[in-house]
């Protein structure tokens, strides 16, 4: 290892931050970092989800597995998940997953007594821990209702006990806190002004219209083609094809800036979008620590074999 350092200092700029949605810029790093962050957010940030269901009575139209599966997919508020234990390595309960450190118990009882169909929703789930609750899906049309689990007709009954545990999206998608996590390269759009001025207004308009998304527009006063929203560009190449078809290749040049990314993060509601990003960075750090810790110890050989020796030797 010579003294050359390739360390970079990535910058983050938050554009928009809501409870369930975040949009931010990540600069001065490369695609491997951005993608690592994306993958960790989807698959490795822990949340809590129902994992074990004991059904006492089920006379509904859905079978037991079906209901257990639906219960698992209900997002639960999981701010506590990072500090909880995985039930497989919990000492307090020998890993059977029924203690306060690694599990939360839920009960559900519903019986339809009227002639009207009864909706059993996530609101009917009674939690043993007030910090872990089914996510409030407010803000939508039926904000007073939860997520429907099953519908019951007169006389049908559902009675069950469920245990929620900490887990990660890699094991089952129900533990994934991310609805969508995506990033795109920031596009850089250059208009060849000289060539653009050689077009008639009509040609300019047809050029502007050729983009499926609204990237360009014509300035009402100067009749110049201007970039209104470069991030609306979807790398579809439609405008480039149009320029070529008009016999003006090089009219616009579009590059992807390979060290700037625009992230959009949408959470399921289990944790806030901001928590999702921060927890992902935390998880990523832990993963890297596993490598650096054993860098100069004998453990490296156990963990990484030849690779460990290679890392120490340089």
């Amino acid at each position, binding site marked *: 290892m010579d003294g050359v350092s390739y360390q970079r200092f990535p910058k983050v700029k938050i554009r928009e931050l809501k409870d369930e949605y975040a949009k931010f810029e990540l600069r001065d790093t490369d695609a491997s970092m951005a993608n690592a962050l*994306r*993958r960790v957010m*989807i*698959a490795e940030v822990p949340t809590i989800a129902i994992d074990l269901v004991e*059904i006492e009575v089920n006379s509904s139209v859905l*079978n*037991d*597995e079906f209901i257990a599966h639906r219960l698992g997919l209900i997002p639960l508020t999981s701010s506590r998940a990072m500090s909880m234990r995985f039930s497989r390595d919990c000492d307090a309960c020998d890993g059977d997953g029924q203690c306060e450190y690694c599990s939360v118990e839920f009960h559900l009882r519903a019986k339809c007594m009227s002639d009207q169909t009864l909706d059993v929703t996530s609101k009917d789930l009674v939690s043993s821990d007030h910090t872990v609750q089914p996510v409030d899906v407010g803000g939508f049309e039926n904000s007073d209702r939860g997520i429907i689990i099953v519908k019951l007709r007169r006389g049908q009954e559902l009675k069950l006990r469920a245990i929620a545990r900490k887990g990660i*999206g*890699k094991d089952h*998608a129900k533990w*994934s806190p991310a609805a*969508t*996590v*995506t*990033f*795109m*390269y920031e596009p850089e759009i250059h208009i060849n002004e000289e060539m653009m001025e050689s077009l008639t207004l009509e040609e300019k308009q047809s050029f502007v219209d050729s983009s*499926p*998304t609204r990237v360009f527009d014509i300035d009402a006063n100067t009749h110049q083609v201007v970039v209104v929203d470069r991030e*609306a560009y*979807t*790398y*579809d190449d*439609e405008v480039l094809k149009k320029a070529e078809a008009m016999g003006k290749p090089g009219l616009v040049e579009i590059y992807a800036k390979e060290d700037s990314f625009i992230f*959009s993060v*949408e959470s399921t509601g289990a944790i806030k979008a901001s928590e999702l990003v921060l927890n992902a960075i935390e998880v990523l750090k832990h993963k890297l620590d596993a490598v650096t810790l054993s860098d100069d110890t004998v453990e490296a050989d156990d963990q990484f074999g030849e690779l460990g020796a290679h890392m120490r030797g340089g």
Partner: protein
Amino acid sequence: MSDQGPRIFKREHSDMSISSFVDSDGLPHVGQVIHQDEPYCSTIDQVTNSKYIYRRKGSETVIVDYVAVDTKNKNLQKANIRFRHPRNPVIGDKFSSRHGQKGVCSQLWPDIDMPFSGITGMSPDLIINPHAFPSRMTIGMLLEILAAKGGCLHGNFVDATPFSDDTESESLVEDLGSKLRALGFNYHGTEVRATGQVDQITRQPIKGRKRGGGVRFGEMERDSLLAHGAAYLLHDRLHVCSDYHVADVCSLCGSLLTTTTIQPPKRVIREFGGLPPTKALKKVKCLACQTSKGMETVAMPYVFKYLVAELAAMNIKMTIQLNSRAAA
């Protein structure tokens, strides 16, 4: 067999080996999980008192969903036992769409390894090879895919009634295309090519979408057009849109290869009263016959010329005899 009496569902109380699986009435509990080779019901012969235990065959673990018995008969002789088979998709499972497009699951990928859209973050649930479409011609499935995409993005249903006239636009494709366009997608993808890159030697369209080629119009496609008698379309696909070439042939010696262009003498072509300059006529001649008298032009696929050249390279001479159409 005559010494056997009617058999009824029952379990001997003394038989503890199967008591955890089968109830005293010889039937399983609803909700019971049954693994491979485990018993799920038993019968007893009323005359011989011999018992028979039914065991689950096959490696799948099942769950008893429902048990119904025939109550008309005093003896329990008829029962209906229904199992649930929980099945997660695994590699090798066969799936099918409504259009009969079937296929085998060849790989299961975690969500994070799937491609994703940079704008919306959507990632596919399933990836299907586009080669499944041209030969099977399930256009309906393609249209359904487009309609489904447009429909779910707009949040409305798409009327897919065939042969109905109540749509305003010219065709369904146009309707769906404009819907997608309104949401910032491409109108449609790359389609059948009319012009494009060609191979250097044969001048025929090249293979492979990656390099700008089209969808191959192959032998089976040719056969179907032949069967339809669509000769003009066939000519268009295989010749005009492929390696159409007008070759010079010497009708005296029948050679395709001995023709050569004569450099026209440099002279100013006079214009005749606004008419375009006359095209210099015979500017090719046959090197073998040393004349341009017999030169004719014949339209042919360019590969034919290439074939003649290849044959010549192995000492085979191919000559062409020309007839005017009337004489033939």
